């Protein structure tokens, strides 16, 4: 058997477990064999781990219209450097991605660029204005995988119910930024002892939990009247869950069999409100960084699967924008290039989180939400993979990011697990010097 690439002595880790060492032969965009073979290029992978490529359900690539913050070229390169082979881009660009032509344009341009594969999310409502529904059928046909008014909140429950129902008929899940605008007011950080002491406008946990509670009731209402199962199991996807109480609500809903899913971001798993003590807008994000108790609960939820997956909510802005004051700086933390090493180090290495579970939360679980099959490391599997180094330490240096957002709340953190090579359908789309 002749292939393109041979990973020699790679350790295989996928959602099912850690499978020991194999010589993985890649060709025709697939895994040809786990027992070696002849290849044009042999990569010595001793001590390195090979895993399914990651899928990010929640990325802001800012194109079209905000290329000063990020564009497809920089964002998709950042993705593959982070081990992501697939990213879902949010539609809150300018203009908003709410028409099939816009989706098609993104698909075509991203295909020319290479790097990670782009799966655009489109708006649920026209212009993300929360009133008139978008053409879900046409959007789906053009390649949209998800509908969301992310960047805005869905204030009108009636519109959300209609949107869920209509999207379901075309097999598209709807993702929501679950925060109640009225309770959130002008909050720039978690409301609590720290915000009261610092004198910063607070965004209470209840802005999130009240909205999740409402949205779950809307799903229940829609689900009871719908009767057809959505293709990807999920009707409603709750983005960036950040609170312990929110998790309890989702857990309960799942127990009752509601078709809902949720995600957690790397920052909500590793940072807390205490990081705002230094009054640096770098840590300004929505929903805000919460308490230690919330972080612990989210970890638990991720472990047990109540939280389906990790999604970055990679939200790049210019350095100048993030150097505005805390009231005016935009919300968002960029994390495509650190998400995996960060969580591998903090969760697996330091907390004993099972590695295959974390791999699942980065790959097969988000794929499931989109109705995509998992990639298992076996003969015939799609060769969209990441090779990473579990033992090499490196500190986070944002100046080296491919993303245009060259800053990071984790700058200077020493992490393990850095990706060294990313394959998309058998092609090497990025490799580090190693």
């Amino acid at each position, binding site marked *: 058997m002749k292939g393109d690439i041979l990973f020699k002595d790679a350790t295989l880790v996928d959602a099912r477990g850690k499978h020991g060492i194999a010589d993985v032969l890649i060709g025709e965009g697939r895994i040809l064999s786990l027992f070696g073979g002849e290849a044009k290029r042999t990569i010595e992978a001793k001590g390195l781990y090979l895993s399914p490529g990651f899928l990010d359900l929640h990325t802001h690539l800012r194109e079209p219209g905000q290329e000063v913050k990020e564009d497809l070229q920089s964002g998709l390169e950042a993705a593959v450097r982070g081990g992501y082979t697939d990213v879902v881009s949010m539609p809150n660009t300018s203009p908003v991605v709410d028409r099939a032509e816009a989706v098609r344009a993104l698909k075509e341009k991203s295909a020319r660029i290479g790097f990670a594969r782009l799966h655009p999310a489109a708006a649920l409502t026209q212009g993300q204005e929360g009133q008139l529904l978008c053409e879900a059928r046409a959007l789906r046909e053009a390649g949209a995988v998800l509908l969301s008014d992310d960047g805005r909140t869905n204030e009108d429950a009636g519109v959300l119910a209609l949107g869920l129902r209509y999207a379901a008929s075309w097999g598209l899940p709807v993702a929501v930024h679950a925060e109640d605008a009225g309770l959130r007011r002008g909050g720039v950080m978690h409301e609590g002892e720290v915000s*009261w*002491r*610092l*004198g910063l406008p607070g965004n209470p946990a209840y802005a999130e939990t009240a909205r999740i509670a409402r949205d779950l009731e809307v799903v229940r209402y829609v689900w009871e009247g719908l009767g057809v199962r959505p293709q990807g199991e999920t009707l409603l996807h709750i983005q960036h869950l950040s609170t312990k109480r929110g998790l309890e609500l989702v857990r309960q809903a799942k127990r009752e069999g509601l078709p809902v899913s949720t995600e957690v971001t790397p920052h909500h798993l590793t940072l807390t409100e205490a990081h705002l003590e230094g*009054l640096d*807008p770098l840590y300004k994000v929505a929903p805000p960084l919460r308490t230690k108790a919330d972080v612990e609960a989210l970890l638990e939820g991720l472990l047990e699967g109540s939280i389906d997956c990790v999604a970055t909510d990679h939200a790049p802005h210019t350095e100048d924008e993030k150097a*505005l*004051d*805390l009231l*005016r700086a935009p919300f968002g933390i960029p994390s495509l290039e650190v998400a995996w090493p960060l969580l591998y180090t903090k969760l697996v290495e330091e907390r004993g989180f099972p590695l295959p579970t974390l791999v699942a939360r980065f790959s097969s679980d988000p794929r499931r939400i989109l109705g995509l099959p998992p990639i298992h490391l076996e003969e015939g599997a799609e060769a969209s993979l990441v090779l990473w180094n579990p033992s090499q330490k490196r500190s986070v240096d944002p100046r080296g990011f491919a993303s245009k957002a060259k800053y990071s709340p984790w700058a200077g953190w020493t992490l393990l697990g850095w990706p060294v090579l990313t394959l998309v359908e058998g092609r090497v789309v990025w490799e580090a010097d190693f």
Partner: protein
Amino acid sequence: MSEPSPPSFPKHLLDFKDWNRAQLESLLETAQMMQEVLARPVKKVPALSGFTVATVFFEPSTRTRISFELAARRMSADVVSFVSSASSTVKGETHRDTLRTLDQMGIDAYILRTDAAGVPHQAHRWLRKPVINAGDGWRAHPTQALLDAFTLRERLGSLEGKKIAIVGDILHSRVARSNAELLPMLGACVVACGPSTLLPGHLPGVRLTTNLREALEEADAVMALRLQKERMDRGLLPSLPEYIAGYQITEARLAWAKPEAPLLHPGPMNRDVEIEGTLADSPRSLVERQVANGQAVRMAVLYHVLVGKR
């Protein structure tokens, strides 16, 4: 010139986090010395000759700026002044651009006022020069708290064990927060009182209450805060008469406090809103004394933050 040197001082005054009691006591003593300078026919000393300080006010506040600038000039510092409105900042130049531009002109220290919390901290990170916070958002206004403490000590002596009531919009008040930080460091007990929509859920070291009588009873001094009219627009208070009926400091209510308890207000005062008009002009009121003391306190702050650079 071989005297034992006093404690060294932080080269910034962002809030009181990096200050300890000994440093604060020492600073208030220096302010006392500055009072003597201000009582002279020639109200000027050469101490800061050769230093240039910039007052950078991204939020206008004429009184505070004049107080700082006079303080600096009385110490013989050169003063430059930059005033802009928040709106012009949004349009183009950011705080960082403005500060970096000024920094090219050899400024030794910055006196900063902003409508957003944290800008003095950001400036301190960007410039690595002494920064004095002249008020940042709802967060801190340390020189106001220092002049309040100075004025209180002038009247009450040591603040050890003294009960100070702060009344009004605690939630949105940098004055309340800085006093809540400073006064307990000087031994005082602080009770903060207001309607619950204007109270934080918690403030370390401070007792919170919505009951005005409870706040004023046994109080050694009462401080009323300015009520911003915009609180009504944002629905935090139903109306001004409601506030006045519930929380205005009147002659009758001040009688709940200790007999001689003085009344303070950081200014500018809404007459007949926070304080009954006649009371504001009575001997109980220390409002004018606060303004006068402001200069001496700011001279002391400039001295401690600027001198002894290394």
